């Protein structure tokens, strides 16, 4: 029931918004839809928390600790983003950067995107998971090119092609998976249900699965934005409208990583080796290093934070690859706190670039003086994202690092170099932007305060206190991913 509301609302509101178009109350409908979705997500979470994993809809849906917390996260961040985009988009309209048609398009596509992501999370069918991922890509491609500037179109095209190619690889992997599964489970839909697969994973044919994993890795890895498959990500993030950048790096990457991890579990079960883990660690470490060094030379603010997203996805991937209770726990937590922090950073960044009507960091100055919320929001957000206590990112990085020293001491130096460089690079850029006196060209605006404050408070709380149910969730999730 909850499931239907959860998926239905976003789909319905997508349709409604397509019809409503650019009325005055369109943003409110957008917010309302995602708010209801969020509530449904909460309901679902409580349900799962109370009575354990749910299998519903003729085994079509499967909800366990792992994906339910991502579901809640997704619906929550999409809600806050909707709230943010209300003021942001209004201003974009007033400054004539986009017209009526595109607003309509934006809203309905936004909801469709959420629907796709929720579907990807909740479905039990690995094939449907793939379809949903593809749908998520397609629904955002045209949002990335919303501004119709040459660079925007270029970015969108690259996004489209690269992710399309990647996802095609993932499909091939899925086919191979099915090929292996059908030997054990027989033909038909049963053979692609994750619940069944995970039970028989040890019987699946290892050679096939290790082959399949390569394709799945490349496919979903492209969407996670792992180096060297990451090239679409900075472009898409920097050119799209900021709310989309927020959900892209806050949510889409998470979902892709989720898909990847699900597959890894199967492969590990089948091969019984840790090879998949090693591959993921390699990709993760490479992403951390490349991203953190690329951070040093960024001029465009959104691009910079896109790279930081790559870095953090790298960290999470690395941790999942590392395995073991603490690392996995850290990785799950990292997905959570990163998406909260990064999306709130993007909110502030969006406003900052609106205030100076540019995304060039060299021309953004004196934010704290100009608009304290934006300035402090950005400052604290960056402090959080680089892993300063008492924010949540520190907690996860603390766990991951300490686990790394234990299990892969030789990799720690590289990991650390990455973290240190990223820290220096981000601060080098952000400090002058927030501090100092405001330039004359700076315009004032009504910022969307609620999302930023909400996210930062959550991240802060997660940094110093983790509620019992959450930790229990993570522990069960860790059990699942063993």
């Amino acid at each position: 029931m909850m499931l239907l509301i959860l998926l239905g609302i976003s789909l319905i509101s997508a349709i409604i918004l397509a019809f409503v178009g650019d009325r005055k109350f369109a943003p409110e409908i957008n917010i309302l839809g995602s708010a209801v979705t969020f509530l449904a997500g909460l309901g679902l979470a409580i349900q799962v928390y109370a009575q354990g994993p749910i299998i519903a809809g003729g085994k079509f849906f499967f909800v366990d600790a792992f994906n339910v917390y991502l579901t809640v996260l997704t619906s929550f961040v999409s809600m806050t983003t909707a709230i943010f985009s209300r003021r942001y988009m209004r201003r974009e309209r007033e400054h004539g950067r986009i017209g009526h048609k595109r607003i309509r398009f934006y809203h309905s596509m936004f909801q469709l995107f959420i629907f796709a992501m929720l579907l990807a999370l909740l479905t039990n069918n690995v094939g449907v998971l793939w379809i949903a991922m593809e749908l998520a890509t397609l629904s955002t491609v045209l949002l990335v090119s919303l501004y119709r500037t040459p660079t925007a179109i270029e970015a969108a095209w690259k996004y489209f092609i690269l992710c399309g190619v990647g996802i095609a690889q993932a499909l091939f992997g899925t086919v191979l998976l099915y090929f292996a599964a059908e030997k054990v489970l027989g033909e038909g839909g049963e053979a692609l249900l994750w619940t069944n697969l995970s039970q028989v994973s040890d019987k699946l044919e290892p050679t096939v699965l290790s082959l399949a994993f390569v394709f799945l890795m490349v496919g979903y890895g492209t969407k996670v934005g792992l180096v060297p498959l990451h090239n679409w990500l900075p472009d898409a993030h920097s050119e799209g409208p900021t709310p989309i950048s927020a959900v892209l790096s806050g949510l889409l990457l998470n979902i892709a990583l989720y898909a990847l991890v699900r597959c890894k579990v199967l492969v590990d079960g089948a091969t019984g080796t840790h090879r998949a883990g090693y591959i993921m660690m390699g990709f993760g470490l490479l992403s951390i290093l490349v991203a953190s060094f690329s951070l040093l030379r960024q001029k465009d603010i959104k691009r910079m934070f896109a790279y930081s997203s790559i870095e953090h996805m790298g960290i999470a991937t690395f941790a999942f690859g590392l395995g073991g209770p603490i690392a996995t726990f850290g990785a799950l937590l990292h997905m959570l706190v990163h998406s909260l922090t990064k999306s709130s950073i993007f909110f502030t960044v969006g406003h900052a670039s609106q205030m100076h009507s540019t995304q060039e960091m060299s021309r953004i100055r004196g934010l704290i003086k100009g608009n304290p919320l934006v300035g402090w929001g950005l400052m604290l957000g960056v402090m959080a994202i680089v892993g300063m206590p008492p924010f949540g990112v520190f907690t996860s990085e603390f766990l991951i690092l300490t686990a790394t020293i234990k299990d892969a001491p030789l990799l720690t130096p590289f990991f650390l170099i990455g973290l240190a460089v990223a820290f220096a690079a981000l601060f080098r850029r952000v400090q002058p932007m927030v501090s100092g006196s405001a330039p004359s060209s700076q315009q004032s605006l009504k910022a969307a305060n609620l999302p930023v404050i909400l996210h930062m408070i959550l991240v802060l709380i997660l940094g110093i206190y983790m509620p019992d149910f959450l930790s229990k969730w993570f522990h069960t999730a860790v059990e699942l991913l063993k």
Partner: protein
Amino acid sequence: MNLAAQINSILAALILLTAFGLLVQRRIYGLLHLFAWQGLFLSISTAVVGYTAGAHHLYISSVLTLLLKVLLLPYILYVLIHRLQIHKDVETMLNVPTTMLIGIALVIFSYHLTSPIRELSTLVTRSTLAVALATVMLGLLMMITRRNAVTQIIGFLAMENGLFFAATSATYGMPLVVELGVALDILIAAFIFGIFFFHIRTTFDSLDVEQMNRLKEED
């Protein structure tokens, strides 16, 4: 080796041939035709497999293929090409022989890759999996070597064909839900790239993707 298997392998060979053709064909119409042919072979082979294996949902998917890949998509592309008035232009490519060699190498490589699976499989179609993988790879190679947006899309769709073929040859087709979903996605994709062609054309007044290189780090 029974008849069905023979037919199937012939079709596989044809598909591979078309894939190579796509790789080296300069004229845009030629590409379109080759693509349509490939789709046709694909749907036929699907039907054949469905018949021999008695997997009846494969008929549906073969029909689907026929509609989508042989009729609809080529038609859309045709219309687009006309609208964009690029049916005349001939694409310059980096030298063909090397591309061919790489392509052949890829075929061998994918054969080597799929050999363990062939041992495992009991299906009549098992030998064709290598071809499927090769088609995918060739599609990717095509996207790399071509500079025109339309040809890139065709390469992308060729990859999809390869995947589809893999699905039918390795396993008797994916579950129907998945088939339908994939088809739907491809349809949406088709619309999207349709829109894109116009955007690109209007902003860059040509469909050469080489022009799209403003977003970069190096300076």
